[in-house]
């Protein structure tokens, strides 16, 4: 078992190191500049609106950057190694194929977690900077200063970061699964995006399936049930928007979504390992 951990750790570490040395983190610089530029926008609006705009901008930018890095990284994860044939020199070692898949996935997940974490800290930093600016300008009244602090230091944003991380982890797991089936990165990306989009419509399919009753044919029911079971429901991650909008979301709901995502990730990685086990390299 220790051997497995060590081998998975080696693959994960190497995947992370590759991303670092390919300067993936340079995108964080762009992200930071966008945020700072955004922070000086809409200064004529009320502080509540300014904070709302900053949070919206920050989380939209984290989400987009994370999705791009996750998607591009995951689609390259296995096909890239096959294309460069570096996979030959890894898989001829006493390394199980599932260990390779899990290690690769973990490396990417760590990369995403670090990136999202750094970006979230940057958002918090810019919110703090804005808080200091606004208090200096409008905070002579202690009640107003307290309101500004409450807007800037919203602890619920941590929940949004956690949910964003697990959402992207699910997207990466979908891409890893498809990358064990195909060698073309275009195919992997197209399929992952398709599942991502279907995932946003999944709840519609589920409702149709549950409410179809006698009306729908058995084939339609089977299809709807298949979509409902196989495709993760990405609407669950709309909690992020709720949190950013300032609405209360319980930690219990957040952890339920984390658990739901964990099950999907485990199923996807198991399926990917089974498919990859029988594949000629």
């Amino acid at each position: 078992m220790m051997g497995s951990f060590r081998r998975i750790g080696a693959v994960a570490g190497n995947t992370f190191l590759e991303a670092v040395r390919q300067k993936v983190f340079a995108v964080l610089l762009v992200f930071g500049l966008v945020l700072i530029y955004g922070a000086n926008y809409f200064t004529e609006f009320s502080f509540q609106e300014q904070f709302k705009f900053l949070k919206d901008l920050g989380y939209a930018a984290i989400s987009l950057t994370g999705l791009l890095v996750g998607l591009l990284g995951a689609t390259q994860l296995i096909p890239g190694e096959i294309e460069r044939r570096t996979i030959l020199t890894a898989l001829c070692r006493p390394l199980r194929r599932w260990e390779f898949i899990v290690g690769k996935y973990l490396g990417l997940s760590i990369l995403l977690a670090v990136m999202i974490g750094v970006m979230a800290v940057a958002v918090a930093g810019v919110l703090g900077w804005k808080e200091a600016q606004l208090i200096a300008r409008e905070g002579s009244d202690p009640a107003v200063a307290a309101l500004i602090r409450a807007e800037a230091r919203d602890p619920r944003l941590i929940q949004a970061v956690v949910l964003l991380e697990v959402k992207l982890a699910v997207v990466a797991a979908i891409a890893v699964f498809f990358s064990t089936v195909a060698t073309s990165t275009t195919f992997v990306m197209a399929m992952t995006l398709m599942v991502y989009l279907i995932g946003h419509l999944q709840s519609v399919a589920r409702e149709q399936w549950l409410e179809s009753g006698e009306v729908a044919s058995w084939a339609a029911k089977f299809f709807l049930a298949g979509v409902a079971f196989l495709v993760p429901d990405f609407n669950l991650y709309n909690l992020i928007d709720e949190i950013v909008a300032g609405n209360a979301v319980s930690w219990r709901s957040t952890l339920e979504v984390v658990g739901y995502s964990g099950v999907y990730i485990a199923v996807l990685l198991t399926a990917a390992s089974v498919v990859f086990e029988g594949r000629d390299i």
Partner: protein
Amino acid sequence: MSAAVQTVGLRKEFPMGWFRGRVLALEGLDMEVHRGEVFGLLGPNGSGKSTAMKMILGLLRPTRGRAEVCGYRAGTIAARRQIGFLPENPYFPNFLSGAELVRYYGRLSGMGGRVLEKRIQELLEMVRLGGEAGKRPLRTYSKGMLQRAGLAGAMVGDPEILMLDEPTAGVDPAGSREIRDLILELRQRGKTVIFSSHLLEQVEDVADRVIILHRGQKLREGKLDDLLTRKKEWEVNVQGLKEEDRKELRGWLEKRGVQVVREGAPRERLEDYFLRSLPEEKRR
């Protein structure tokens, strides 16, 4: 004791895609490599050498037949522990340095800690990539250096068998000579070396036994001495033979009914001449 590698009726067909049939890459290969020998897999491109190697490594699944490594079914973890592999081209993560590459492969082989660090130093010294050279990124290495780094990576788990796919392809004569010397050193250490090549002169220098493949089929197999020795001929190399002595010798031989097949000053091989022409420090 089981053979280092044994294949029985090993066959591989690759599907060409939907409705396009299958292509045969290797047809029923029977092969046995003994422990401690240097074994050459020879054949032109597309003869099935790499396919055979990949099946022994467990990277490809045989369509039929079986392969065993030190008595273990090929592809199992136990079998892969016995083999170190150097691919034809330097398929290594080029963002790593030489030392990091060997460390990565060591960890994939389940090694770690001081044992691994000591092994990395030993191996880098052995392949002459110690010191600063081992700290440079692989993308700055020459082909010969990459092959040497790959060899160090292949040897990190101290495997019983080393499998080298075209180890000298694209390497200059001096680098090629180094790899050849390393193979001989490995044999001295009791390792089994299986290598493929289409550069036949190099094979001749190091292999104990060879197998010749063509279009997926085995054409010949045997010890190099048995395959290459012209048993009906005899060769004597001498120095200081004068012209009149040569004529007399030829006459003496003809009187006894011996047919002179070839006669003349022996030629040196171009590779040896080239290496001899280089300054001492450039030969290594």
